[in-house]
């Protein structure tokens, strides 16, 4: 087995499922590049709720609650029993079902590179749960806006994400109206810069890339009226452009004039931002940082940036460039797995099934609850933020818990399938001298080789 195959599987993918190393070993680079050719890049179950349906249900539940409350008020409250609410609320149930569904797909996938990439962009466009609406909506963004554009052009991905209700509501753009719009004149509602600021700082150009506060305001005005339909009042569903809230006039962003009308104005701005050299560099760096090393070589980032600019932000080409670069294939493992990567790769390696509750509590316990970064910057992708003492002990205890559930596995086969020969003598001996299968598997999962990729 080649060293390249173990790198392909661990560094770019989510770790080997049983016998997967043999498949990757035939042509490791090609095995990865083939994954990028898949159409669709990833496939989700379609039998779970869409954000439109979720918004509808949430609105109906709010109405119902209101009328219950009114009924309660009219009676003597001390005599009336509280209205019964189900044990797990609708929004929480939806959140759990959808976010765990993604995790399960990743665990079972045979093209885990694409699922890694989905995780990357889901964290790049981080949305956090808080309150019923956001809690139910957060897991829909990656399914509806990111997955369909995962290996396409970045401008399509960007527009699709920015127009998704989860992002519009999370960063308050659904109520952002131009100061000179009809809506503002009528009820005094104004501009909210939140989404525009994060687009420039996090989603595209990156901090300190030379834009000014004026650019933030211009972009914010360009996307005024980008709102979300009210399921009980509007005919539309999901994204709704509210013309009467759009700031009229010509905008100037990064010294370029945008005279387009209506929602086309914001779209043009986003399309230009998507292929801006600062964006190309910012996201190329972030990808290399995520897949390759906390300090990715400048030559690698430059290759990817050049590809981004040459292909107008074609993500498949940028990923292919990274995979084809020699700088990506060093033998040393430079990335410490995040809790999410650790959980997914552990279950893949041991071929274990876990139920929803177990999966969810694993991530909570290890510190990476889905969609709970609490900041539009998302969860950290740096080793220092995950390798703390308390975190390591939690991983040991978690590993020991799931090792106890793996009854039939052959430790020798698992080591071979995950690392081939790329495991130190010390790790190999410590694992093989363990007094029980459970202990051996715990040590395998906690070996320096498995903690890193």
């Amino acid at each position, binding site marked *: 087995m080649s060293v390249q195959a173990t790198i392909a599987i661990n560094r770019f993918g989510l770790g080997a499922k049983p016998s997967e190393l043999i498949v990757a070993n035939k042509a490791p680079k090609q095995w990865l590049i083939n994954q990028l050719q898949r159409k669709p890049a990833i496939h989700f179950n379609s039998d779970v709720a869409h954000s439109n349906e979720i918004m509808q249900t949430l609105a109906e539940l709010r109405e119902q609650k209101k009328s219950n409350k009114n009924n309660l008020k009219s009676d003597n409250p001390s005599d009336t029993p509280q209205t019964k609410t189900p044990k797990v609320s609708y929004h929480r149930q939806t959140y759990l079902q959808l976010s765990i569904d993604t995790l399960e797909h990743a665990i079972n996938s045979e093209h885990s590179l694409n699922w890694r990439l989905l995780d990357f962009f889901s964290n790049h466009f981080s949305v956090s749960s808080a309150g019923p609406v956001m809690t139910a909506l957060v897991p829909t963004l990656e399914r509806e806006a990111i997955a369909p554009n995962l290996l396409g052009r970045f401008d399509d991905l960007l527009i699709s994400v920015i127009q998704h209700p989860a992002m519009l509501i999370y960063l308050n753009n659904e109520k952002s109206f131009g100061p000179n719009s009809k809506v503002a004149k009528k009820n005094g509602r104004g501009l909210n810069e939140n989404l525009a600021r994060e687009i420039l700082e996090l989603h595209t150009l990156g*901090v300190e890339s030379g834009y000014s506060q004026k650019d933030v305001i211009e972009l914010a005005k360009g996307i005024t009226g980008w709102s979300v339909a009210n399921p009980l009042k509007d005919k539309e569903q999901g994204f709704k452009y509210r013309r009467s809230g759009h700031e009229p006039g010509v905008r100037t962003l990064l010294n370029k004039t945008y005279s387009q009308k209506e929602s086309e104005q914001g779209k043009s701005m986003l399309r230009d931002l998507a292929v801006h050299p600062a964006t190309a560099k910012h996201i190329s760096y972030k990808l290399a940082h995520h897949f390759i090393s906390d300090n990715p070589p400048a030559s690698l980032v430059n290759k990817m940036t050049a590809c981004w600019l040459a292909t107008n932000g074609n993500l498949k080409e940028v990923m292919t460039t990274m995979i084809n670069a020699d700088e990506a294939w060093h033998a040393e493992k430079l990335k410490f797995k995040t*809790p999410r990567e650790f959980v997914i790769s552990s279950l893949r390696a041991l071929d274990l099934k876990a139920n929803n509750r177990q999966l969810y509590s694993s991530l909570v316990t290890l510190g990476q609850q889905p969609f709970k970064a609490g900041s539009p910057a998302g969860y950290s992708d740096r080793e220092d933020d995950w390798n703390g*003492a308390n975190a390591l002990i939690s991983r040991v*205890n978690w590993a020991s*818990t799931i090792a106890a559930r793996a009854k039939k596995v052959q430790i020798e086969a698992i080591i071979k399938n995950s690392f081939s020969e790329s495991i130190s003598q010390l790790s190999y001996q410590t694992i093989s001298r363990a007094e029980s299968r459970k202990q051996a598997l715990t040590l395998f999962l906690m070996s320096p080789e498995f903690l890193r990729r």
Partner: protein
Amino acid sequence: MERRDFIKALGASLVVFQTPLLAMSLEANQPTSAQPAKLVWVVLRGAMDSLGTIVPAFDANLLKQRPKLASNIKEQLLPLDNGYGFHPALANLHQWYKDKQLLPIVAVSSGYKERSHFDGQDYLESGLANIDHDSGWLARAISQKDVNAIALARSTPISLRNIPQANTWYPSRLKDADSDVYQALSSMYADDKLLLDRLNQGLALQGLTQQESNKSTGKFVDLSKACAKLMIDPKSNVDCAMLELGGWDTHSNQNNRLARQLEELDNGLHALKQELGAQWQNTVVIVATEFGRTVKENGTLGTDHGTASAMFIAGGKVKGGQIAGQWPGLADEQLFEKRDLMPTSNTFSWIAKALNEHWKLTPQQLARVFPSVPIASASVIHT
């Protein structure tokens, strides 16, 4: 400087710090005493009802606004000065007050003007005119003071984000692995210094917090105990901590729920003081909530989201035993937007005063912690 860094989650919890305290800047006017000034920041999430906690029994409008809620507990209040009374569940805090170690401050607000819990909490933690999810006031104060801090939480709250000195600790629900696993791991990590160090630090920490860990419930009283243990252990080198207690959103059935909440708070703070032992003399505890609740009771025997609430400053050297803050009154025309308690002072200005007197932060340094709020003039700590 970059506005934000990434979020440190549980993973960052390197608790047993190895670097000694760095010398404080000269500007900081370091006290000669070798005793470190310890600070505990307690956030009550969900909006604590101040009128049910520090009850203004003297205000004739209280019963008019809250005929059902207020009449139920009026007889059992624990007496304070100026006609205020503590909710009966606050027995320990009442004793602190009598010992002049607790300063309740009424009618405070962070300046947050809307009524969303999440934004209100983010605002309270961020301490800026506009919420920054990646910069908290406590983190900015720590940057000035350069002490180590720990959040008793699964991931770093906004208060402590974006600084290398902050870490997290939280009891695990998982059973500990067999001890021979740890032994085998330490031999497997022989060539990997980083993992070996982390493992050893983790095991030391596990020993320190064994009792709280085993309960594994994350109850406030257990977190408070663990918090104090971490703060007094010389090896851990932690001088600042953050605790959180949720569950204050009492829209219905408030009397029962608030009593439970206050009891939990009271027991937790009592445990914190007990475990701190002699260090209580060097400790200041600041307790605040994102906003208050409506003055009028609602139709479900509860209250809704409001504006001004109350806060506490406690500790061995706190100028306690008096009620601070000006009372705005409860008549309809005295209320904010005709529904909420009117704020008469700013939460952050009191915190700034406490940081000034306890951590000796200068006005220049405090301007970096709270750029948009002046320092309160009234002294809160014996210096």
